[in-house]
């Protein structure tokens, strides 16, 4: 497993451009990204579609070569020492395909075990273990009859099979039901407890919040922020918020208008007809706004911290369905 002195993943000024057939310009998927992931951690990679998450995973897996910059996995350069890197990683790319549909889960894994130099009783035992781990132990069907969630579990089993030092998970819970997704988190915790490092790309904020020791947000191929999930929330303390329950919509609208006029209020909105959400601005703003609310007889108030979901929208920006 990765030694404490050597980061599990170290990316410096990584740039990846794609040439688009028929187009003059080149698309930049990664734009000078730098990132360090400590050994034994779960690092979440958050970002919208097209942010560069999958490109980064593929470069770390030696499937893509960077246009410039360097990337090291377990201390080995992904270009110069590609074979060393391949022997130390597990790669789980999301999606329905990537498996041999006519074969059973066990038969699929027998092939992949050989691809990682595993053979004999050791390979059989390991295959049995990972199949049990992902909950496919009692399933003896061809993969073509699997549900999407079952296929996703098999992808995960393939990633776990070689007991990798670094496990790259690209949206691994896509298609899993909530119970399975919960079991997946326990599984990842187990993998990390055994000494592996996990890089997890996801859109699921709850998953990132529950699993990750650190979270990086990327967009446009650039790193926007890296922190603990809690730390990212604290980035937005300037935007601490207060939810005020009122008796009726008219009162809610009146209170919202009054609060919006204050200098220490950044934004207001009426939610569910009668609740006013207030985002404060500046030091001690929460206290001052609370005093003003209580003075008006409004006592049903709650001060909350933003969820990672809200941090995401703040940092990335609300762009609706747009893909950049």
């Amino acid at each position, binding site marked *: 497993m990765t030694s404490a002195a050597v980061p599990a993943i170290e990316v410096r000024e990584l740039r*990846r451009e*794609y*040439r688009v057939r028929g187009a003059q310009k080149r698309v930049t998927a990664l734009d000078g990204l730098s990132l360090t992931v400590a050994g034994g951690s779960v690092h979440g990679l958050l970002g919208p579609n097209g942010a560069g998450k999958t490109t980064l995973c*593929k470069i770390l*897996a*030696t*499937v*893509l*070569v960077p246009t410039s910059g360097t990337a090291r996995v377990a201390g080995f350069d992904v270009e110069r020492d590609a*074979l*060393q890197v*391949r*022997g*130390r*990683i597990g*790669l789980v*790319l999301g*999606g329905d*395909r*990537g*498996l*041999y*549909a*006519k*074969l059973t889960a066990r*038969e699929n894994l*027998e*092939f*992949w*075990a*050989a*691809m*990682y*130099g*595993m*053979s004999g009783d050791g390979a059989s035992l390991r295959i049995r273990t990972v199949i049990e781990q992902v909950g496919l132990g009692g399933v003896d069907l*061809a993969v073509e009859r699997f549900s999407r969630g079952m296929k996703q579990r098999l992808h995960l089993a*393939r990633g776990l099979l*070689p007991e990798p030092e670094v496990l790259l998970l690209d949206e691994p819970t896509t298609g899993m039901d909530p119970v399975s997704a919960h079991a997946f988190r326990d599984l990842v915790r187990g993998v990390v407890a055994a000494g592996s490092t996990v890089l997890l790309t996801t859109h699921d904020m709850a998953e990132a919040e529950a699993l990750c020791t650190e979270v990086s947000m990327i967009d446009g191929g650039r790193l926007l922020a890296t922190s603990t999930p809690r730390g990212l929330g604290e980035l937005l303390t300037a935007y601490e918020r207060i939810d005020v329950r009122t008796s009726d919509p008219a009162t809610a609208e009146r209170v919202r208008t009054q609060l919006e006029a204050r200098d220490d209020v950044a934004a207001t909105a009426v939610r569910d007809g009668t609740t006013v959400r207030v985002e404060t601005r500046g030091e001690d703003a929460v206290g001052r706004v609370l005093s003003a609310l209580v003075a008006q007889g409004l006592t049903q108030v709650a001060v909350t911290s933003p969820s990672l979901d809200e941090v995401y929208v703040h940092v990335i920006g609300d762009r609706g369905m747009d893909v950049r």
Partner: protein
Amino acid sequence: MRRVGAVPVIAAAALLEARMLRRSPAELFAVWLVPLQTLGYLAIFRFSGRDDLDAYAVLAPAIIALWALALLRSGEVIANERDNQSLEAIAAAPARLELVMIGRVAVITLASWVALPLSALTGWLFFGVVPVVADPTVFGLTYVAMSLATVATALLFAVFFVNSRSPRIFQNSLSYPFYVLGGVLVPIALYPQWVQVLSRGVYLSWSADLLRASTTGTGLQGWPWRLAVILGLAAVTFIVAHALLGLTMRNARREGKLGLT
């Protein structure tokens, strides 16, 4: 880090392909068509009063099946991995893609061996053709050499087709001309001189000539060096396929094409 041996990877890939073929026997359609071809050729030869050409009629469909599977099934091995989105996972594993291809293509080629007994059985059942091989050693060695050359050629097809935007056009175009150039039914000695020159570059022509000669026991002069020519052509083809596969993979990693379908 575990050491990844070549033989276990080839064996695992061979097992993978064998399992897939067992569950999708229709993929061997070129083999299942053999009885029809044998019946057709035998009917033509018998109608012409040439029962001395029975061996030609039985051997030709088997060689055609070997080539057709190399073209249509083995030739699509890499493209199918890419379309299945498993090529990226293979590229990220320590084992070499080339070994996976060798294992899979070898099994497809071996599966095509079924065509020979199938053709012989058809000839015996419908026309009473008794299969006789005058020199089984030369016949066996030639069949193995021809199969090795087919594996090498199929690897070249696989690399070529994955780089092509319209592989079907090539697959359709590379069948009949090679049955003619390869002299699978008509010996190339009967062709014009300039066609014979071209045919000598095709391993099928050397193979078909030697196989037919070994059934009758005549025309076997210099069989060892003729066998060596087949193996030499196989080696040259394999070296070219190996070099092109290396270039293709480097290019795919640089251009991000491993996952494109």
